[in-house]
């Protein structure tokens, strides 16, 4: 016999929990759903575009009745649950329908708040919550020019007003405060918003207190405290919502401002779960879908008896869905004595941005006119990143930090359907929008899986998120308090690294077991990460797991699109000798190499080799003293240098020798992502040291050390770490910086995003200011290098891992 699961409330959070459950354990429960509304499940957020005539009710259905049938779910639509007998575990609806349960989910949402004014019950006074409300509003706007009053200048009120206005009504918004959306916007942004809405034809009565709604049986107008009377045939009350926990309270569950739940989404009766707007979690209630979906996921995880997920609260952000208006806000943007506000204002372009900082961390942000960087600020805020390193350009946005992809081409709404969004995978806007609609996608992750957009280099992530928001409404940018490493676990990178260290976990299976992995062997995302974390933590002892490495690192060569491989030997500091060049030329001829290419990293690459040839070629190269350049690895790559003081008339130090020393010290080390260095002989910087992970710019008085540069997808110039006087110090600081990166960055996070996440001052504290700490880092780096500086080509040239390079059988 299957267990019985009953859901009360056929809304966005409850049904989402069922969808998540069906993904995890499709056969586990016999499911029944009671919904007060006479429909399947629809996207409530999109009621605003429906009201504005931009969408139809059919277009916003998420799950029609067929979906319930297909999944064997009994849907009791239009049936209100009136009581639950917790002792006998039976739910009963007002018409007498009953259903037994083993587990119950309460997802009863919210009720619109109705101001207790005289006349509130008159015909023509409507709230804005469900399809019935929208129908009522639409049937009220029959005659063009009819007058409507919307009470409430918040998000809901403005969306309602905009919709009615688009339907041809003459709309006045009445607001108690002097700023629209005062909970999301500060005064300047509120004023800009008001001006644009006025341009669209809306009227406003600010700081107006309604005294009564007038009319005998139908509404005829509104009277204010100051005596003013305004005629209207429709009054929309949109002053707020109240969590609907009446039923929960009535059946004796502990409620405060909502049904109180734990981190596992259970109420005080462990058989009863609650999700959505009706819930109070850690003192918070939520009124946006992103956190509710997160709750739904956790709830499903427990219902499926996996039992490892925890809901730890969400940070939310807001966008207004009025076509043509770009507005974003998140966090606390009012500020106080302890905070500082950065403001950018351009009234000519209708642009306003404010970012509130406390101790150089973002507390809140408000943007009007250009919101493309909303997600970026939001992530910086959620991660608590110290922004002092780029504070001076923070307001200009992320694109300002450099972006080889899309610059600030950010008007997604205005883009043609054929506009290419993802340059790596060739995905156009129309394709993404169609897929979002057809597959009912809500998250960036889902869009990546289904369309591949933003799944490669990631430079179009902002655009894809904007498209998602534009298509499904609202803002679904990642709200979970923490991001798991991959789909196999609930734990994030930092937790896993700490767990490996503190619990002395020494193998990948041990880590998976300790953290209760959901999959037997992990996946292509977590296995390489775990292999690296273990290697980094236990350099002397860990037995590298070849099968958990990407092919390039497993074969020590770079796989090509035609399954051939490239071979790039090290050319120390970009310098070479006739003898080395001759050896490379000989190999190129002997093995009929299809191309010899000068790489962007100052060395020579041989292309088009078959896997079987590799060990032989390596053997030949080894003979001439050439070793692996690790061009295939998440490892030290190249150290570019210029000719420096030895030759150049401007050179201040011997940058070539320094680069070679740096490369000799660091080659062979595995890093979270690839690691590149350069040393330039003077500030003309011919070796491009300021876009490297670690760059040295020689100056007359010594060496400037630069960190966190990147020349890839998103160009980022380095931050200046410090100035040192001797080349020994350069080596010392380099080892310390590299080791800190090795020990603390997330797998596949380059130094640039790592520094933006933890903040330059953190790095300076550890590497520059704390001498003892720096020495310890240096020691750990050199200890690890003892085991790493072993040319992987040499062993394989002599026959190690032969199975990797030969077919198991050749059939002719």
């Amino acid at each position: 016999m299957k267990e019985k699961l009953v859901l009360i409330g056929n809304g966005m959070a409850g049904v989402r929990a069922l969808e998540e459950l069906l993904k995890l354990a499709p056969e586990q429960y016999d499911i029944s759903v009671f919904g007060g509304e006479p429909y399947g499940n629809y996207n409530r957020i999109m009621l605003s575009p429906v009201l504005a005539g931009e969408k139809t009710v059919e277009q916003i259905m998420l799950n029609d009745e067929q979906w319930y049938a297909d999944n064997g779910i009994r849907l009791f639509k239009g049936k209100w649950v009136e009581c639950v007998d917790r002792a006998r575990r039976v739910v009963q609806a007002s018409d007498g329908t009953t259903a037994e349960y083993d587990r119950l989910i309460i997802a009863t949402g919210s009720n619109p708040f109705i101001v207790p004014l005289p006349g509130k019950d008159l015909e023509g006074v409507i709230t804005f919550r469900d399809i019935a409300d929208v129908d009522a509003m639409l049937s009220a706007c029959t005659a063009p020019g009819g007058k409507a009053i919307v009470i409430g200048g918040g998000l809901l009120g403005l969306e309602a007003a905009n919709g009615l206005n688009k339907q041809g009504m003459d709309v006045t918004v009445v607001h108690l405060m002097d700023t629209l959306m005062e909970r999301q916007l500060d005064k300047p942004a509120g004023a800009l918003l008001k001006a644009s809405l006025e341009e669209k034809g809306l009227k406003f009565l600010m700081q107006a207190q309604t005294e009564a709604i007038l009319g005998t049986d139908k509404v005829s107008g509104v009277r204010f405290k100051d005596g003013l009377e305004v005629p209207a045939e429709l009054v929309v009350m949109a002053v707020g919502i109240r969590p609907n926990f009446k039923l929960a309270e009535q059946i004796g569950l502990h409620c405060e401002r909502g049904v109180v739940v734990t981190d596992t989404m259970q109420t005080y009766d462990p058989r009863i779960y609650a999700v959505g707007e009706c819930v109070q979690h850690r003192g918070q209630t939520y009124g946006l879908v992103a956190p509710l979906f997160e709750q739904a996921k956790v709830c499903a995880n427990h219902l499926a008896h996996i039992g490892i997920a925890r809901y730890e609260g969400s940070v939310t952000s807001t966008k207004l869905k009025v076509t043509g208006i770009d507005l974003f806000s998140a966090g606390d943007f009012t500020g106080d004595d302890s905070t500082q506000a950065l403001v950018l204002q351009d009234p000519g372009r209708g642009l306003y941005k404010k970012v509130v900082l406390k101790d150089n961390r973002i507390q809140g942000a408000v943007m009007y006119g250009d919101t493309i960087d909303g997600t970026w600020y939001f992530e910086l805020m959620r991660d608590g990143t110290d922004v002092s390193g780029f504070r001076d350009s923070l307001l200009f946005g992320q694109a300002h930090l450099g972006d080889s992809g899309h610059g600030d081409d950010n008007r997604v709404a205005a883009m043609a359907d054929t506009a290419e969004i993802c340059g790596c995978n060739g995905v156009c806007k129309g394709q993404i929008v169609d897929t979002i609609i057809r597959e009912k996608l809500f998250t960036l992750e889902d869009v990546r899986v289904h369309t591949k957009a933003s799944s490669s280099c990631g430079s179009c992530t902002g655009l894809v998120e904007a498209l998602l928001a534009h298509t499904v409404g609202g803002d679904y940018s990642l709200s979970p308090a923490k991001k798991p490493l991959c789909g196999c676990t609930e734990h994030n990178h930092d937790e896993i690294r700490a767990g490996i260290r503190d619990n002395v976990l020494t193998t990948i299976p041990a880590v998976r077991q300790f953290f209760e992995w959901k999959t037997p062997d992990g996946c292509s995302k977590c296995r390489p990460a775990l292999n690296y974390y273990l290697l980094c933590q236990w350099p002397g002892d860990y037995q590298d797991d070849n099968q958990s490495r990407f092919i390039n690192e497993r074969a020590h060569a770079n796989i090509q699109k035609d399954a051939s491989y490239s071979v790039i030997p090290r050319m120390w500091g970009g310098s070479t000798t006739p003898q080395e060049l001759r050896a490379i030329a000989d190999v190129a001829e002997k093995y009929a190499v299809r191309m010899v290419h000068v790489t962007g990293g100052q060395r020579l690459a041989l292309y088009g080799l078959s896997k079987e040839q590799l060990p032989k070629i390596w053997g030949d190269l080894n003979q001439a003293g050439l070793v692996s350049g690790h061009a295939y690895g998440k490892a030290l790559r190249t150290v570019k240098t210029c000719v420096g003081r030895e030759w150049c008339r401007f050179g201040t130090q011997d940058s070539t020798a320094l680069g070679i020393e740096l490369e000799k010290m660091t080659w062979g080390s595995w890093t979270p992502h690839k690691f590149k260095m350069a040393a330039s002989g003077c500030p003309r910087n011919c070796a491009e040291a300021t876009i490297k992970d670690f760059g040295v710019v020689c100056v007359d008085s010594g060496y400037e050390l630069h960190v966190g540069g990147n020349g890839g997808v998103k160009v980022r110039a380095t931050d200046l770490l410090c100035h040192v006087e001797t080349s020994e110090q350069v080596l010392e600081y380099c080892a310390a910086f590299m080791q800190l990166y090795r020990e603390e960055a997330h797998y596949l996070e380059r130094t640039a995003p790592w520094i933006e996440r933890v903040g330059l001052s953190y790095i300076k504290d550890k590497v520059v200011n704390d001498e003892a700490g720096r020495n310890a880092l240096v020691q750990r780096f050199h200890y690890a290098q003892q085991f790493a500086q072993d040319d992987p080509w040499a062993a394989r040239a002599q026959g190690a891992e032969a199975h990797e390079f030969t077919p198991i059988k050749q059939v002719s």
Partner: protein
Amino acid sequence: MNHAEKIMTDASGWLEVGRIEDIPPLGARVVRTPDGDIAVFRNAEDEIFALRDKCPHKGGPLSQGIVHGRRVACPLHDWKIHLDSGEAVAPDEGCAARYPVRVEDGFIRLSLTPDEGCADR
């Protein structure tokens, strides 16, 4: 079969390719044939699977991918392919042809005639 003379198959058409231990757990090896490579996979449970060594996406060599559970992640763009059916894991679509394979006394035997059903053989 054209190459019948040269190929050491037994009477019922099975070709012995090697022993289970010849393939690392969670790994793969290639059987090279005139009609293209066949990837032979071994998972953590010592189950053996054989697929045409060509990803349905853009022809990536599946034998070079990361094996997990009953799936392999293609080395080129990380599509996941079901080892037991050759089908791409949804929402991706496509398949790599599957070859019958048997294990007896630790020996892997393969048929060089792929199963029906996958258009790209």
